[in-house]
């Protein structure tokens, strides 16, 4: 049996009485687009009516932060949207042969077979495929420009064709139209594939990064972050807050956790001094005025308590004399909770009362959370007091218990500290630990200026005068560190003035950092003329004596003045340092030479009595403190020795 050509209405129906009726022309793509727009306008209110109950639930889920139900309901709503759209189209096609939009534009969907109307299954199939095509970015719709009878896939699969009842229609697409449409489709497909590929690549990279960082990043959950024994269920809100405050004092707690703990305490007991103290700490860096108000409140709710005393110290810390603060802290210390102890450690470390720091740390709890803080302060204090061997015993016993990642941080600052005076002071252990650790995975680990700087300095010490500055991972470093290395290199190549300019820029940077201090120190050590030194000396005198790097700068200045035989200036700088609690033996020996040379004999004598070697001379003399150097024959030879060492 031969099927009749479904499109040839004239020939198939030429025998019927309707033969004179003109076959409707194909609908133009423009009209079909317009019909879709009208349908869209009609569907929007209908759809919103259908989806309204879901939207209500979705909003509630979103506000409640209920992620699972939010996604579940969203998927449900999308399915519903799809079904409603299909139903809208299929119903209208079945009853009227056209959607309202098509009716407005006087289009009609007819079957390609010569019969009266579409079957419902055809209508349903057409609608479903139409919506799937919408999900494919509407690309298949472009077939209206290329298909012989302008039938995109949804028309072909359901044996339909869209015709117009207007006076104008369109013919089959011309070759050029087909070509343009096909070209456009290909272009869009290629573009989409590229876009998709690029997005997939980006997503994969992000995922990779997240996977890598998820191990090292602390989780947001406050109770997990503390890393303490899992006793958190049993502990009360007050204990939790005390622990958070201890963590805050050693610089490890996130302020939001501290605030949460403080809120918890205050909710249980609105008159808890500890709660207000915690709130004040949490707000200190965000809103200073509010933080002060909380400090004042502590004494209002708990008069005369330890917390009240402590809050008074904290609130006056910036304003009053640090001697007074030290006195009141000393009174408070026995029987005080951990957070006050750690706070006191920070205070005494800052004012360089290292003996007191060591004394407090003796009684400090040795939980793993605080270990790094205790270790760091104990080690640094011992170094500052000149007890190098002791320091290394502590380091050795401690570093064994740490993992590689944990080791890196303490090893770097210990190494840094030792190197601060000279390369000669490099002690084997901690620097060796550090070098071993970073070898091989420099790029991942040395992303902070602090670690990078340590590495650079070890290298420059290894190879004598800064020749080993060839840092392969330089591009990984923060910008400041990169500039610093650049300046060092320039200086090595004897391009002194550009190197100095770069360093000056780094030294003046408003954000205080390790590089900042390092640049200032380098500038001083590069200076050659006397005027330069006095300039730096004036600058140094104006700096805050308790700021980081102040001691290092002062020591280098002293040495520089001495090397120019300007002993009186050297003595002045030394006295400044001594007044601010710098009493390490190395420094004292230096100061004695400077005082002696600048004819400050009494001071020299005074400092001499503080040295360990003066013990011998006390015995040599007749049991009393010698009044002048002439009574100390040993001193003369000591002096000769050290002078030569300068």
């Amino acid at each position, binding site marked *: 049996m031969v099927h009749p050509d479904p499109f040839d209405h004239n020939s198939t129906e030429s025998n019927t009485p309707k033969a004179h009726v003109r076959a409707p022309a194909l609908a*133009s793509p*423009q*009209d079909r*687009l*317009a019909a879709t*727009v*009208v349908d869209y*306008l009609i569907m929007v*209110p*209908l759809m*919103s*009516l259908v*989806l*309204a*109950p879901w*939207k*209500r639930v979705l*909003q*509630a889920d979103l*506000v*409640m*932060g209920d992620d699972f139900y939010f996604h579940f309901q969203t998927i449900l709503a999308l399915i519903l949207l799809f079904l409603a759209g299909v139903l809208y189209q299929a119903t209208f096609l079945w009853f009227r042969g056209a959607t309202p939009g098509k009716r*407005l*534009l006087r289009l009609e969907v007819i079957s390609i077979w010569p019969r009266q109307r579409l079957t419902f299954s055809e209508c349903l199939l057409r609608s479903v495929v139409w919506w799937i095509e919408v999900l494919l970015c509407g690309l298949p719709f472009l077939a209206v420009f290329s298909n012989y009878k302008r039938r995109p896939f949804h028309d072909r699969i359901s044996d339909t064709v869209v015709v117009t009842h207007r006076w*104008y229609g369109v013919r089959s697409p011309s070759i050029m139209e087909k070509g343009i449409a096909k070209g456009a489709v290909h272009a869009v497909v290629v573009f989409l594939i590229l876009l998709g590929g690029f997005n997939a690549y980006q997503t994969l990279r992000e995922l990779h990064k997240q996977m890598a960082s998820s191990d090292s990043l602390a989780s947001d959950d406050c109770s997990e972050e503390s890393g303490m024994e899992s006793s958190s269920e049993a502990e009360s809100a007050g204990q939790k807050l005390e622990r958070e405050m201890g963590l805050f004092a050693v610089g490890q707690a996130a302020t*939001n956790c501290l*605030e*949460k703990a403080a*809120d*918890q305490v*205050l*909710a249980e007991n*609105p008159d808890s001094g500890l*709660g*207000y103290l915690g*709130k004040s700490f949490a707000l200190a860096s965000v*809103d200073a005025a*509010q933080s002060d*108000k*909380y400090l004042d*409140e502590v004494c209002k*709710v708990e008069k005369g308590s330890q917390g009240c005393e402590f809050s008074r110290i904290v609130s006056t810390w910036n304003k009053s004399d640090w001697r007074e603060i030290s006195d009141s802290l000393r009174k408070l210390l026995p029987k005080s909770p951990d957070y006050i102890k750690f706070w006191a450690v920070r205070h005494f470390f800052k004012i360089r009362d290292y003996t007191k720091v060591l004394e407090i740390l003796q009684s400090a709890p040795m939980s793993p959370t605080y270990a790094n803080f205790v270790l760091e302060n104990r080690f640094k204090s011992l170094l500052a007091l000149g007890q190098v061997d002791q320091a290394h015993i502590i380091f050795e016993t401690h570093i064994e218990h740490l993992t590689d990642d944990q080791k890196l941080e303490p090893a770097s600052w210990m190494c840094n500290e030792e190197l601060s005076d000279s390369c000669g002071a490099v002690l084997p252990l901690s620097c060796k630990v550090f070098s071993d650790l970073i070898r091989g995975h420099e790029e991942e680990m040395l992303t902070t200026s602090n670690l990078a700087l340590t590495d650079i300095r070890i290298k420059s010490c290894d190879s004598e005068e800064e020749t080993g500055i060839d840092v392969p991972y330089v591009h990984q470093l923060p910008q400041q560190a990169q500039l610093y290395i650049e300046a060092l290199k320039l200086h090595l190549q004897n391009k002194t003035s550009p190197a100095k300019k770069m360093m000056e820029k780094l030294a003046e940077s408003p954000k205080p950092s390790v590089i900042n201090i390092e640049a200032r120190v380098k500038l001083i050590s590069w200076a050659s003329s006397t005027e330069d030194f006095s300039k730096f000396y004036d600058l140094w005198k104006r700096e805050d004596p308790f700021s980081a790097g102040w001691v290092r700068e002062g020591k280098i200045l002293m040495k520089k003045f001495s090397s120019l035989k300007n002993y009186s200036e050297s003595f002045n700088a030394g006295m400044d340092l001594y007044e601010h609690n710098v009493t390490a033996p190395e420094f004292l020996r230096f100061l004695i030479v400077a005082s002696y040379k600048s004819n400050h004999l009494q001071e020299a004598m005074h400092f001499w009595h503080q040295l360990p070697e003066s013990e011998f001379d006390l015995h040599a003399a007749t049991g009393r403190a010698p009044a002048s150097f002439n009574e100390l024959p040993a001193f003369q030879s000591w002096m000769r020795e050290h002078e030569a060492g300068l």
Partner: protein
Amino acid sequence: MIIPFFNDFLQWTRVPVTIGIFALNLIVYIVVTPAYVNSQTQIEDIVNNDRFLKTQGQLFAQMITKSKKHYDSALVSLSERVNDRNSDSAEILGRLAMRNSEFMEHAQKFPYRGDHISYASWKKQFKIFADLRDVHPNYTLGYSSVDKSWQTALTYQFVHGGLSHLMINMLVLFLLGSYLEPTLGGPFFLICYILSGMGAAFGFDLVSGATPVPLVGASGAIMGLLGALSVATWGKKLRFVWLLPTRAFTGFVWLPSWIFVAYLMATDVAGLIETSSWLGAGVAHAAHIGGFLTGTLIALLSRFAWNSKHQPARVLNRELHLDSLIQPR
């Protein structure tokens, strides 16, 4: 785009009342704007302050915990989260508290248990906020649970919250007014407008319960005009202009007037269903529906009252006008 386009759209001399209403709206807008901008920025400073919101959320959570039965179950479970020290939830609840009339009335007297300092600063800012409400035009002229009277039900129609709000409302007012005013007659048009506006306010109060956030804008009254229009032209076809990507690009189409009813009711009913009362929304859908129903009712009543062959007297003299507007059958 398919928008109604009536014949008299550009004949301003026939619509003095519409122009009067427009002028009144514009004058109110201009007079009120300096005070609006001033107090609105201050209110936003307070309302967008995290600590203020957090304390407010904690306070609201305590209020909810004390009498759980009075509040929506979603609010109750949100307050439980806040009591577990979830600070995000506290901020959300703090925002929602502003929409709760119970909270706005009794919050200052509620015995708050917790941090004295943040409560003191909350109280201070809340006081500023309460004082600002006496100056802010939206609160003084708008219709809210705090200020629920027939005066505010009248005045709120002429206040707008921003230039775009005013412009859109006025555009629709002109579209409808240019046809309806000659059809219904000036005085009846004005009565219909004002009463629909008041009906919108009371409908809003009735359906979704008045909130402390004031209701402002002419949209309720304008919806009333739409209701009147659909009654006046029921069963006939109205002229619309369309702008579509067809061969002709633009043209006219006559659509049945019930299209208005279907379209707007679908949108507003959907809006009404999808917004939970405790969450609130930017558009007062209940007011729209209230206004629409009032306008429809007034127009229907007038038909029965006049009983004059379905049209007010004045329109009968203007057959030419109607012919050009309504497609002859």
